[in-house]
């Protein structure tokens, strides 16, 4: 791998928390507040890593393993995620399946760690997370399937590399737009954003992801916060990979464009969070089924076009 490319691979791990900061600044701007500093997520993670820990007496090693396994899984997922046209650190045919599997592993351990507390709040969060992600999973697969069909490649790097301006100008453009919409809805659901979940809610009863990690503290919670940032990063990177067909030939320019794209995705998420309320829990499955419907439509179009 070329050294410039390596810089961007490492950059993913360094820059991921900025996305959270950008979303929060966007929301602050809409609300007319100054908002927390852009680098607040870094301060939070740093502070958490400095702290001791308090564990519930109900919990076992599973509770402590949850954040560790979750972070390990998402780190490998980041390595598989292409930095736009620069490509991923690791690419092989079928890496998209491993990508989805790793997110499944992260979810599995977040859920069991939450259930380990024996709290009804965390049980409720775990139950909702299981429900949301079970319906989001086929939608994600449909979105990725579209990319396989359009690009003819079985690796994420190959897919993103093959999407150029001409791909968007042909009939496949509409297909790609649908795939991006599908994956964007999955991004909102998987990263606990409005309209599926509200990361800023103050009432345990209304939380999903936040309530699952309610009893974690100290370095464990630092791991969780960082893992959440990385998870947002990988989904945003998929969106940018689809929507940014420009390839300059220079790694630096490609990488720079990619980072600009990531910024835009974060701002869009912030705008959505500022401009709409979250859905009632009963309507969340409808939204995700709609995402799956868009994906299915895109697959059908891609098959007819191909």
């Amino acid at each position, binding site marked *: 791998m070329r050294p410039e490319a390596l810089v961007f691979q490492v950059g993913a791990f360094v820059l991921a928390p900025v996305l959270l900061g950008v979303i929060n600044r966007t929301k602050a701007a809409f609300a007319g507040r100054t908002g927390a500093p852009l680098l607040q997520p870094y301060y939070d993670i740093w502070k958490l890593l400095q702290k001791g820990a*308090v564990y519930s007496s109900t919990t076992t090693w599973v509770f402590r393993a949850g954040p560790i396994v979750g972070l390990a*899984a998402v780190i490998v997922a980041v390595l598989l995620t292409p930095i736009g046209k620069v490509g991923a650190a690791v690419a092989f045919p*079928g890496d998209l399946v491993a990508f989805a599997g790793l997110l499944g*592993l992260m979810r599995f351990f977040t859920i*069991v760690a939450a259930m380990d507390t024996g709290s009804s709040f965390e049980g*409720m969060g775990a139950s909702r997370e*299981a429900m949301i992600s079970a319906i989001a999973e*086929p939608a994600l697969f449909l979105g990725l*399937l579209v990319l396989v069909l359009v690009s003819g490649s079985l690796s994420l790097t190959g897919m993103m590399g093959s999407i150029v301006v001409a791909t968007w100008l042909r009939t496949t453009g509409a297909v790609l737009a649908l795939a991006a919409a599908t994956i964007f809805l999955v991004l909102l659901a998987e990263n606990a954003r409005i309209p599926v979940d509200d990361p800023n809610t103050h009432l345990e009863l209304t939380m999903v992801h936040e309530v699952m990690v309610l*009893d974690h503290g100290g370095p464990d919670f630092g791991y969780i916060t960082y893992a959440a940032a990385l998870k947002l990063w990988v989904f945003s990177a998929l969106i940018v990979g689809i929507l940014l067909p420009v390839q300059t030939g220079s790694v630096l320019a490609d990488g720079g464009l990619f980072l600009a794209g990531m910024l835009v995705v974060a701002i869009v998420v912030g705008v959505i969070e500022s401009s709409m309320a979250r859905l009632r829990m009963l309507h969340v499955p409808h939204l995700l089924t709609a995402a799956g419907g868009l994906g299915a439509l895109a697959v059908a179009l891609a098959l007819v076009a191909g």
Partner: protein
Amino acid sequence: MLPLLVALGLPVVGGALAVALGRFPRAATAAGVLSAVAGCALGLVSIGDTLATGTVIALRLPWRVPYGEFSVAVDSLSAVFLLVIFGVSLLAAVYGARYLLAYRQHKSLGAPWFFFNLLVSSMALLVMARNGMLFLVTWEIMAISSFFLVTFEHEKADVRNAGWTYLVAAHVGTAFLLVFFAVLGSQTGSLDFDRFALRPLAPALASALFLLAVVGFGTKAGFVPLHVWLPEAHPAAPSHVSALMSGVMLKTGIYGILRTLTFLGPPPAWWGFLLIGIGLTSGVFGVLFALAQHDLKRLLAYHSVENIGIIALGMGIGVWGMSQGQTTVAILGFAGAILHVVNHAVFKALLFLGAGSVLHATGERKMDRLGGLLKKMPVTGGTFLIAAAAISGVPPLNGFVSEFLIIMGSLSSATGNGIATAAPLLVVVGLGLIGGLAVACFTKAFGVVFLGSPRTEHTVHAHESPASMLLPMLILAGLCVFIGVGAPLAVGLVLPAAAQIAGADSQSVMSNVATLTSTVQHIAGVAAGVLALVALLALVRWLLLAQRTVTTAVTWDCGYERPAPCMQYTSSSFAQPLVEIFSRLLGPRRHLERPTGYFPHSASLHTETPDIFLNQGYRPLFEWVNLASISLRWLQNGRVHLYLLYIFVTLVLLLIWQLGLRGGV
């Protein structure tokens, strides 16, 4: 071949000895277990050569049964199934020793060990049989020996009920197989498997035979809607038998379909579509019903239906690839299906053994009365967690590897084939949905049983099982990790069998092996990477916390001071959102007693999800059959001389028919 025959005979002899020693429970157990272990170990050693090099070993002995011949052989396909049968049986026997001893006060242990060993030997002989008559006889021995194992606790009414359901289902399946072999035999003039393949069949006839095989073998495997016996029989059986039946015996149905595919010539595409359809239905229904269950062993039984569905998806992709002449797709599909047979045997056996360990310690199968067991039973809980993650199909464990192969098979079919590939692509989406629901199902099973605080008194006093029960579980858990990290090795083991079914020539196999191995090495790399990162991050956390204050406190419950175990989320409440979404398919029932008045003294909510196929399909059908048969009651009046008359009249009629036929010619 001789060592293998000894390996088959030894458990049966030991089982007979156990019956003779029935009055001495420990001696009977020793005879049964030791002979099973010795037989399985010998069997494992004897198939090593075939697994490594693909050498076929065969033996033919004359047999005086009409059309019968004692023809047995071990090829790559048989060897993989023998590996599963011997491996899991060995561990289940070791586990069963202590498990069954708990019943020694009021039960003879001779017969259960006899039937257990007979089941092991019959399953092994079944996958070696190369003659239709031998196959059917072995199939029947397998069904009957497992029936007696299911009805071990026959003093309970629900166990007897489950036993009957199983017996009826098994024989309905056998009826289809009887027709299958009769038609195949009449076409080829012999019941010899080798000759089946030589005579090309008319396409319509081949398709009819394929359908017969799918119904006959599918009943054993548990395809929806033929699965209804499965959630009844598996919870009723002792846990090491459930492990053997669910982990291994179901797979003889899969073996039957795979073996059938080698007789019937080149398949049309719709066979693949049929298997994919069956796989999607079984997968989705299986996991949804599993999710809605409250009984741990019933949940596991339904989940076997889901995994059989995944295997059917792999076979469907394989058949579709064959029909299109896409060897890579076919090999990927079959390799995924066969590896999932191995994987499911490993983690499902482990899960049933874990459930048995919980039952042994608490006497409880209802998940909502358990809880917090991980602290009391660290090994059972830890291994159950590994199996639960493995069955959910997440890396770095084994379930992911086989699902990966199946998805890769369907994706490889996708490029450049247009709309014709829509059905294989459905597999990808279906596996996504099944995987997501499986995570929900197994976080529920593990979380409710092993995490949180104990919900009842006898759960509080639970104790860990003895070492002889834990050792098999530890070995199986190790295998879950080993197949995940050593994926290239595991895939290499099943590849020859997959190539054999796909009918691929050696050149295309070699080119496929090269690409497949490099891909699978990446998967193993991902698995190893995850494990290494887990170790690294755990070390970092340990270093961070080493010098700091780490205290314990009560779980945060919004400042509520006295959290009680009954406030925890239960298995029903955890599954409620998903059960609600899919309520049209599942038909859950709620029994609600509302609190009334200003000082309500009672209120209750009870939910259950009975099998809609059983209640709305088979039950009315069999009731109708029953009603229809009542009109024939007068024939069956209990007088023996009348029965003799029936036999006499039948014989005379047959004689007249036969003579008339001859006369006509």
